[in-house]
């Protein structure tokens, strides 16, 4: 806990937080102003505790003058935690409900939006590989954080987490042994290079960037929960504009299109696993 957080009132801290986010946006262009403030506050408290700075205002000063502190804060505010085959039931549904429809395209594009360190992109590549579809696919894995993208490119994960991934993989109906997909070395597992063959990594910020191609499937799970309603609407609109008619959108287990202003543009494929499909005829 920050030394001073007992003395500084929560209202003052909220103000300091808004000013910090405004400063980051004005100086560097990264826009966190429409993120969930409860989440941001928690991450910033964590940074204060690590750095020993007495207040968010001090952190603002450090971020403006010290590029290393900016990188730290960007890392804190990125959504870094993901697993491979997180929610095995979802991947089972993807295998059974979505892949048969994707297989009707001679070539298809998949967007993993907010890919963090790449776990979701590799999970998708494995799934396509096991269904004989990977050669026909292109996976666009994007994140606003260049550091996360570098991790995704390296595809290098601690063996302790690979153990969890293996259990998830088995539960999700995996056809092979998960060990077929990585080589272990020095407490790390590196994903095998063929999984990257159809993968493109690119910087893309869901808050400020636009459409970059027509997609048949978009995966964006456990990202929207970090955004406020206005930003959620913007991002779902971006997905709607990026999907081909009949294209699929997959959200996290606790995210829904139910209250989105774009709900009418989609139909439900499987509500429990949050799989949606863009309607073929939509209003302009």
């Amino acid at each position, binding site marked *: 806990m920050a030394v001073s957080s007992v003395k500084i009132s929560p209202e003052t801290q909220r103000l300091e937080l808004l000013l910090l986010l405004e400063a980051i946006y004005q100086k560097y262009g990264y826009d966190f102003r429409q993120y969930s403030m409860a989440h941001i506050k928690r991450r910033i408290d964590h940074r204060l505790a690590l750095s020993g700075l007495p207040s968010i205002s001090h952190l603002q000063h450090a971020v403006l003058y010290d590029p290393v502190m900016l990188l730290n804060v960007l890392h804190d505010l990125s959504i870094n935690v993901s697993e491979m085959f997180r929610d095995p039931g979802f991947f089972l549904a993807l295998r059974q409900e979505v892949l048969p429809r994707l297989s009707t395209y001679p070539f298809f594009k998949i967007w993993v939006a907010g890919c963090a360190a790449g776990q979701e992109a590799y999970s998708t590549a494995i799934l396509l590989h096991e269904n004989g579809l990977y050669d026909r696919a292109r996976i666009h894995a994007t994140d606003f954080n260049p550091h996360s993208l570098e991790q995704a490119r390296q595809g290098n994960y601690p063996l302790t987490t690979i153990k969890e991934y293996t259990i998830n993989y088995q539960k999700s109906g995996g056809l092979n042994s998960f060990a077929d997909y990585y080589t272990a070395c020095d407490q790390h597992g590196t994903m095998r290079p063929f999984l990257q063959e159809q993968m493109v990594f690119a910087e893309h910020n869901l808050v400020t960037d636009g459409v970059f191609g027509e997609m048949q499937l978009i995966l964006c799970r456990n990202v929207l929960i970090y955004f406020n309603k206005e930003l959620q609407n913007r991002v779902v609109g971006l997905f709607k504009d990026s999907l081909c008619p009949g294209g699929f959108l997959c959200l996290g*287990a606790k995210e829904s299109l139910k209250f989105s202003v774009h709900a009418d543009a989609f139909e439900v494929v499987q509500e429990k696993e949050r799989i949606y499909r863009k309607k073929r005829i939509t209003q302009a």
Partner: protein
Amino acid sequence: MKHGPFQAIVMGASAGGLEVLRTILQGLPATLPVPILIVQHISPDSDSYLPTLLGKHTELRVKEAEDKETLSAGVVYVAPPNYHLLVEADQSLALCAGSKVNFSRPAIDVLFESAAEVFVSGLVGVILTGANHDGARGLARIKAVGGLCIVQDPQSAQVSAMPLAALAASIVDYVRPAEKIAPLLNHLLL
């Protein structure tokens, strides 16, 4: 320090929590003037059965907490498996899939610390039975902002580690066996 008026109750439980939570919720009336937010440690893969189980023997409405949902008095919100539960300044709920805290997701500390920021002296925090120290930090935070702290009597708890850790971390206002917690809340709130 003077507490209240109370605006919300947060409860945290781990091993043995289900039974204690049922005992407490059973003793609270539908007219409870505040919402209750609960983190019960639970396997990440489990279905969302907890609200159904907890809702069977209480007049209160028990539901799984949803992202962006606004809190209502007399409703019990249970953190879903594999997500942290937080409270926003406008008293809506937020879910977060971030790292585990104290090996737990949902974690009691995450809920308690974020609720403390929002409700300050209007918050009641309750730590119940459990086998680790999750919640101790969060309860201390509630105390620091002027909220009211209740801990289940370790002697009456199925697993005493969590109540003991909470007692070690802050000066709590009340230590009570499970069956005395609902009467105490009624006395404080009604």
